[in-house]
């Protein structure tokens, strides 16, 4: 691609500035405010003085009632969903990609359809089903619930990834005496690693951010996650925005770290599922 002329370059940077100001400003303002003391937040000034910066909000946030429990619950649930989705999804994708199944097309459609179902509709019988199984207000119930939301997409995406790996690789491994599960774990996993990571990241993000299902299926502090915690903060702490912002920063840090690891693969992974 040819190098743009200087004037053109200025136009490009101006355009980029407008977009990125809009995208990054809310995040920057949140992070800045989380380090300001409450007088500074309420001072009506855009920028704080150096002396107004503090870690107090973070220390105080972790003191509030169940904040630590929310963090732990979010971590336990999101990581379990991630592992379960990648494990089950890769088994299913291995099957769809490498085995002659009757009704393969129906399986694929059945896996795709739920993506279009309104969650608010699913939630109603879901609640009845979960209470019949005694899984309301349990970690297992929430992990299963989130996995059912992430698995269809992961299955599609991983099938696409596995299909792109030449069959000769597995055949060579089978001839060398590798078992069929061994083919998946030793041959396909390493080659499809970027796909597995994106599927895992996607599942993590969905589970970590879910408010709707947790709000109904979790009824006590034992299982509630960060989104519920932050929502409670917003309504109960009203004016203590220093604490709310600090809590929110804590909730976005894991996704940001995880994102910085996978971001190069993210889009090809996400759209591969849609295109294939």
């Amino acid at each position, binding site marked *: 691609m040819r190098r743009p002329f200087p004037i053109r370059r200025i136009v490009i940077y101006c355009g980029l500035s407008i977009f990125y100001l809009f995208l990054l*400003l809310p995040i920057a303002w949140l992070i800045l405010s989380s380090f300001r003391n409450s007088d500074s937040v309420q001072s009506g000034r855009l920028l704080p003085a150096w002396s107004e910066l503090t870690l107090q909000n973070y220390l105080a946030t972790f003191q509030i009632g169940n904040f630590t429990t929310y963090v732990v619950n979010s971590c336990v649930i999101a990581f379990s969903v991630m592992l379960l989705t990648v494990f089950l999804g890769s088994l299913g994708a291995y099957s769809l990609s490498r085995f002659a199944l009757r009704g393969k097309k129906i399986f694929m459609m059945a896996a795709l359809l739920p993506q279009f179902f309104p969650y608010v509709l699913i939630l109603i019988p879901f609640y009845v089903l979960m209470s019949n199984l005694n899984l309301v207000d349990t970690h297992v119930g929430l992990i299963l619930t989130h996995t059912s939301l992430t698995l269809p997409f992961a299955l599609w995406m991983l099938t696409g990834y596995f299909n792109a790996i030449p069959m000769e690789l597995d055949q060579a491994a089978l001839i060398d005496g590798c078992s069929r599960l061994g083919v998946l774990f030793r041959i396909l996993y390493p080659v499809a690693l970027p796909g597995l990571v994106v599927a895992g990241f996607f599942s993590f993000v969905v589970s970590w951010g879910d*408010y709707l299902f947790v709000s109904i299926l979790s009824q006590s502090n034992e299982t509630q996650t960060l989104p519920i915690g932050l929502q409670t903060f*917003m309504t109960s702490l009203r004016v203590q925005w220093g604490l709310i912002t600090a809590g929110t920063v804590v909730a976005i840090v894991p996704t940001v770290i995880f994102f910085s690891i996978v971001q190069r693969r993210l889009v090809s992974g996400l759209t591969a599922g849609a295109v294939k």
Partner: protein
Amino acid sequence: MSAAPPSGKSSLALWQSLARKSFGYWLIFPTLAVILGLDLYPTIQGILTSFTNQSLIDPGHAVYIGLDNYSKLLKDPVFQVALVHSLELTFLAVVLQVLLGLIMAHLLIQNVPGIHFFRSVAMITWVLPIIASVVMFRFITLPNYGFINILLKDLGLGRLARNWFGDEKWAFPLVLIMHLWRNVPFYAIAFMAAMQAIPADLYEAARIDGAGDWRQFWSITLPNLRYIILVMVVLHVTFTFNNFDFVFLSTGGGPVNATDVLPTYIYKQAWNGYALGYASAGGVIMLVILVVLVLVCNKFIKGLSEQ
């Protein structure tokens, strides 16, 4: 497909081939069980519930009442408002996202210093939990010490300052803006990837023929992006139409139903109004609208890929 060549030893080979055949089914069984049991079954159950008067207070005793829920819903003015809002929001969000996504993709594909930074951070808004985005937007629009109002006052425009989310005129646009904030970079990055796949010699040839930037965009870029545009549209029609979190967490549907959409209306009917059957009927109407929208888009995609 990948079955190894059949060996000569008959009974052992037969057993092996049976095991080989069923092995594929065993692999997919857990995934299918989760999807069928936890997605398809509840949906079908939800459709059945929509014909009953099931209540959250006593879910065990529900009576079949035919289409009563549906006729009641269609007459409910709040439902009508929510339906219109949902369609407006979905339409406006998706159209604006495609337009802004194209502009942003066009900027991101330029070979200027530092562009890799812009590309790599772009999708950050998409991966953050929606509750965090809502906190950010609530916080930036606070009446007394939100960024927007402070800035307006500093610029001498203090009379424009207001309680943005509490303002009936501004709450709905803000919900729309939050959708754009989250999704436009996703469109931009997807479009950018598709633009990079267009062969450079197409542009070279167009330039030799004297085509300007606009002409190149209309005759080369856009036609090559048709497929990814439609994929993104189908995905986001679904996401936006089904999205509950943005509205519920930011405004709860208020002020005075100004931002109520179908998902929030249905949620409130089910969990605050205890009317599970009635709410399910609303969900089924959503499902029908979505199926129609997706089928229409799918038809477009099929038509395009056959060209």
